[in-house]
């Protein structure tokens, strides 16, 4: 015990006592590397008003550590940036680290989100603030589309028709790939396939035999068989090399960050300037609206253990809606502003102004973003199991092996049904 006793004494002297000035609220913020400049700027802005302690943490760190904090009943950060699914886990009464936010700011602010913060509504209340939207749109290579004489598809039937024509007349060209979560956000989710539809904290709909799922399989299977829809991951080095960098990328359905971070970088798809354009989502047969899926899009959660929840929420709103972060903050790579489409309406108005003028794109990519931002399919809800990792664990390997889309969807459903049951969900088919 001697060692520990001395260690404790040493420890006490080594740790600088936390400043406990009652006058100034103090909050601890966890953000990942891309959000760090904005958070540091906020700390500066708030100097003298709020003590802001900014900490660099990997996304998802809180989920890994919150159980430890709960065990010793301290250590919770006030506000945290994390991956979208974390809110279900944090809100769970057994974990209890996501505060209900409704009353912390005025209803008009919530209203300004439009549908942008729908993801964070659980049981009719706000439990997080969406940082950015990753709504899918149709990304296409305008140069090639014109050259081949194709019209931009507005329905899935047209999408398939183009695909089959490409296979016949322009073999080698690609309409994208679906071998990971992309398969979900680009096709299954827009088709309203119920694979992660949480009805409540304890009931989830997972049904790969639902007609909204099977129609995806029957519609896309010919494209897979024809090789125009790749079964590899869109990030697969082989796909990038054989297709994207070989100039064979014709179009694909992808999230709003696709242009800047996948299509554009020289080390990624490397699509030349002046070619990339966006269009709204093609509609599935019998639908009037072309829904989007979502691939990514981080959230902020506030801890119920925070002494200053209002100040904590204010940070999230600064990141989401303040021009100083959205437009001006200087990033490590020399660029300015937030990297992705802000979820907050007034915020994204500021953001899109800069993107709309970006000469890299063949035309203004923003209208499709704005349209789809209000059309993200609301069926997918946060769940307490790793619904995203499950795409790699089940769907991706199955489709790589059998190249059979329905089989791969079934594999995902089986895997997540097990995972959901394990954490206490009742899995239902409707």
């Amino acid at each position, binding site marked *: 015990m001697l060692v520990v006793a001395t260690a404790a004494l040493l420890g006490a002297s080594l740790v600088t006592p936390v400043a406990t000035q009652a006058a100034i609220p103090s909050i601890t913020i966890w953000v990942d590397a*891309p959000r760090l400049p904005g958070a540091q700027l906020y700390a500066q802005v708030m100097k003298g008003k709020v003590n802001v302690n900014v900490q660099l943490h990997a996304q998802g760190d809180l989920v890994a*550590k919150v159980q430890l904090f709960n065990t010793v009943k301290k250590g919770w950060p006030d506000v945290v940036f994390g991956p979208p699914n974390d809110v279900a886990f944090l809100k769970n009464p057994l974990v209890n680290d996501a505060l209900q936010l409704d009353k912390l700011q005025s209803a008009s602010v919530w209203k300004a989100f439009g549908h942008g913060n729908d993801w964070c509504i659980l049981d009719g209340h706000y439990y997080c603030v969406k940082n950015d939207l990753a709504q899918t749109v149709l990304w296409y290579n305008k140069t090639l589309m014109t050259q081949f004489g194709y019209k931009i598809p507005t329905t899935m039937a047209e999408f398939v028709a183009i695909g089959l024509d490409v296979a016949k007349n322009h073999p080698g060209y690609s309409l994208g790939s679906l071998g990971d979560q992309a398969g979900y956000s680009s096709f299954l989710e827009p088709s309203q396939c119920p694979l992660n539809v949480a009805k409540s904290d304890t009931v989830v709909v997972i049904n790969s035999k639902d007609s909204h799922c099977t129609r995806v399989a029957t519609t896309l299977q010919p494209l897979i068989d024809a090789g125009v829809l790749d079964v590899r991951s869109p990030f697969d080095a082989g796909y990038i090399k054989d297709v994207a960098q070989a100039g064979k990328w014709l179009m694909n359905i992808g999230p709003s960050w696709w242009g*800047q971070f996948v299509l554009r970088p020289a*080390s990624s798809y490397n699509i030349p300037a002046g070619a990339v354009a966006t269009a709204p989502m093609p509609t599935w047969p019998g639908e009037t609206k072309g829904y989007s899926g979502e691939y990514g899009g981080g959230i902020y959660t506030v801890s119920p253990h925070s002494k200053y929840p209002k100040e904590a929420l204010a940070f999230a709103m600064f990141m989401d809606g303040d021009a100083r972060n959205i437009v001006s903050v200087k990033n*490590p*790579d020399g660029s300015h502003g937030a*990297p992705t489409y802000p979820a907050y309406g007034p915020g994204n108005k500021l953001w899109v102004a800069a993107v709309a003028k970006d000469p890299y794109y063949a035309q203004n990519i923003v209208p499709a973003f704005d349209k789809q931002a209000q059309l993200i399919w609301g069926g997918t809800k946060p769940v307490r199991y790793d619904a995203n990792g499950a795409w790699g664990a089940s769907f991706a390997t199955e489709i790589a092996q059998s190249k059979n889309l329905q089989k791969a969807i079934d594999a995902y459903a089986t895997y997540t049904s097990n995972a959901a049951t394990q954490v206490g969900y009742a899995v239902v088919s409707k």
Partner: protein
Amino acid sequence: MSIDFKKKVPVVGKEPRKRRRKVGIGHYAVNVWLIFWAVLSVIPMLWLVLAPSKTDREVSYKNPLSFASFHGFVRAWKNLQDFNSGVLAHWVINSITYNAAIVLIASVTASLAGFVISASRIRFKKAFLISTLIMMLVPPVALVIPLFIEMNKVNLIDNPLSVILISSLYPFGAFLSYIYYSNTIPPEIYESARLDGCSDFQLYSRIAFPLSYPLLALLGFFAFVGNWGNYFMPYIMLPSPEHYTLPVGLGALFFSTPAINPGNGGTSVPILKPEIALAGILVAVPVMIVFLISQKRLIRGMLAGSIKE
């Protein structure tokens, strides 16, 4: 052939062996195999060393083992170094100080323990060895939560001492020391020394310690290798970034880059494959340096042993 114990203390090192009488093809084959395996082991590191000379695009395009330009290293280093106003240096310093303390405490306590168990006639020897063995076999996941609670009780969460103390428990080293001492020093030696009036401490300082250099080099080396790359314990015990070690800091930085996690979406942090590779070298080089140092010690220790003979 009679075996005289005093002379027959298995020498720690060995005198230079006599010239080989016949050098057959077998020897060449063995040497070729040894070198082949060495080359195979080094190629991944070679890739890490060469990757920062390229841009992220060139990493995908150029020959994996080609060299592009020195400027690449400068650029990758600048990107790493500029991140969060040079926090990288801070992580390096943390890693070095924690590890120095761990290696010291772990090696000393383990070697002393190994010596005592091999030299003394303490009763609970077997119980001791079995409990040490159990500690080596327990999955670390089982202990993390109790350790966290324990450290919280003494207010050491977020204090580097927590990691230093926990990591200083070195059952692997204690066991290794026990085998080492019991293999190199026969009990008869202690017996006769005791008869000559040596105290137990003198048994250590005069007999065991002079023979311990290779052991200490081995212990120090493995303690260092085991802890330098350790992610789990500092990750759990030290949540504040100012206490991050190099592996934890790099983890927080890298796991959000598209080079490792493309599905995470956009980033404006210029940390891609070349930068990660450069950081990898940064982590690996100290291990190799420590190896070379301890290897030298090891040989010197062996010579010292044989001269005494």
